[in-house]
């Protein structure tokens, strides 16, 4: 178990560091973490499917600025790992992902608190004109964030695997089914959060239009987005025409 726990821990560390020091390429998401965990545990295909399913659940989980609704990285790493190790598939990952995301998020808060003395030390180096000192403080943060991903994942896998397996096997089927159908409703929260971020009264018709295009015409997301792009371009031309009339 040691080797697997270390490898999955490293994947979680990588997932956190993606948004910290690699430019935020959106690699710290279930769709990427799932297949990576699958790869190290010798079941890429299950990792791929579980990651994709988790991604659809977490698609709207908002992590804008300082606020967040959960550590998606740790949740997907542990969820996928237990799904593979217990041979129970996506249902297990979905059941575990939400509580783990909420718990691991507190660890993320801790990392952000641990980092605070770094900037005070950097202040001191700055007033001495010590460039290397400032750089060193920044890089210590990288280690803190790596551990933020690695430690919870590694610990849970080392402690949890037999315990988790026993727990999962003992759960009645109706509960697993129920948890799964509940989890499949969760994207609605993500979409509501996105709506809250983007919507204004004037823009409500666009949400409805997107819904109708998919519900009645069965268009896929890319098709709907491209139509949206055309509408946005056309509207921006009307905006310009309005302004020109006003300035004349």
């Amino acid at each position, binding site marked *: 178990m040691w080797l697997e726990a270390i490898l999955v821990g490293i994947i979680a560390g990588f997932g956190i560091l993606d948004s*910290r020091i690699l*430019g*935020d390429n*959106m690699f710290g998401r279930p*769709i*990427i973490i799932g*297949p990576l965990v699958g790869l190290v545990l010798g079941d890429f295909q299950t990792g*791929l*499917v579980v*990651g*994709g399913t988790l*991604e*659809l659940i977490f*698609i709207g989980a908002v992590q804008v600025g*300082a606020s967040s609704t959960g550590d998606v990285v740790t949740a997907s790493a542990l969820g996928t790992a237990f799904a593979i190790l217990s041979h129970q598939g996506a249902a297990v990952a979905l059941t575990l992902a939400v509580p783990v995301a*909420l718990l691991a998020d507190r660890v993320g808060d801790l990392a*952000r608190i641990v980092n*605070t003395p770094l*900037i005070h030390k*950097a*202040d001191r180096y*700055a*007033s*001495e*004109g010590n460039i290397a000192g*400032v750089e060193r403080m*920044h890089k*210590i943060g*990288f280690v*803190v*964030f790596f551990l933020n991903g690695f430690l919870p994942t590694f610990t849970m896998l080392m402690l949890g695997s037999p315990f988790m397996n026993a727990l999962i096997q003992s759960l009645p089927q109706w509960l697993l089914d*129920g948890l799964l*159908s509940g989890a*499949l*409703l969760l994207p*609605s*929260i993500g*979409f509501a*959060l996105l709506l*809250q971020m*983007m*919507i204004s009264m004037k*823009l409500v018709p*666009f*949400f409805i*239009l*997107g*819904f*109708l295009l*998919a519900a009645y015409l069965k268009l*896929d*997301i*890319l098709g*709907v*987005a491209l*139509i*949206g*792009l055309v509408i*946005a371009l056309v509207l*921006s031309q009307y905006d310009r025409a309005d302004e020109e009339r006003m300035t004349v």
Partner: protein
Amino acid sequence: MSHDVEKSIGKKELWKVFFRSLTLQGSWNFERMQALGFAYSMIPVLKKLYRTKEEVAAALKRHLEFFNTAPWMGSFIMGVTTAMEEQNAREKEFNPDSINAVKAGLMGPLAGIGDTFFWGTFRVIAAAIGASLTSKGSAVGLLFYIFLFNIPHYFVRIAGIMKGYQAGIKFLSNASQSGLTQKITKGASIVGLMAVGAMTATMVEFHTPLAFEFTGNKIELQGVLDKILPSLLPLLLTLIVFYLLNKKQVKVIYLLLGLITFGVIGKVVGFL
């Protein structure tokens, strides 16, 4: 203080800033957020422009002030800041306070644009397309996901630092005067909202197996609902959650637990 013209910024420094900008959030903390990452990214420029300890110290302190924006947009602000630092190193009468004023003025609007574009639009579309493929076992979805998000990402990052530097302050006053930033945000919101509408119709799996006996005929409730409006239940659910979140200020965790409980009860009672 010596101010020779030789110390000018070239492509080499800008690329160095670009690579360092990837680590913007590497030491994120609650007090000053991305400040240390910003200072770290600017170091190649500061090294090139300033010689004396006093100058370096003043510049480092300047960039250790509070900073936070959408990470993908950071390099544009760094480009603008580089242009201003260069001016500061050349002109005695330049007021260095204006550098932080410009940074502060840019980080808010760009955070809004960046979150709308990258978080709200590109990520959502990339994940929706990618995950709908991988969840069915097709690894091609990974490529869709990675490239749909990261081609625009790196385009904006690289163009950001180069154009930000070239245009400097000039672009900024123009953009805010002509309302360009608002227009861009509005356009991104339209595309994003339509995608969210489409996802509401297709990705919330909410249908009911309930059926009734009516004058000897079996009537399935889901079939009736589909005739009224396909995906009616997912739409209603999403709107209810939006209402609870927006008007009632219900916390996300309660909504999560509530929906899971609803799912279990629904399965046991038989309406799900």
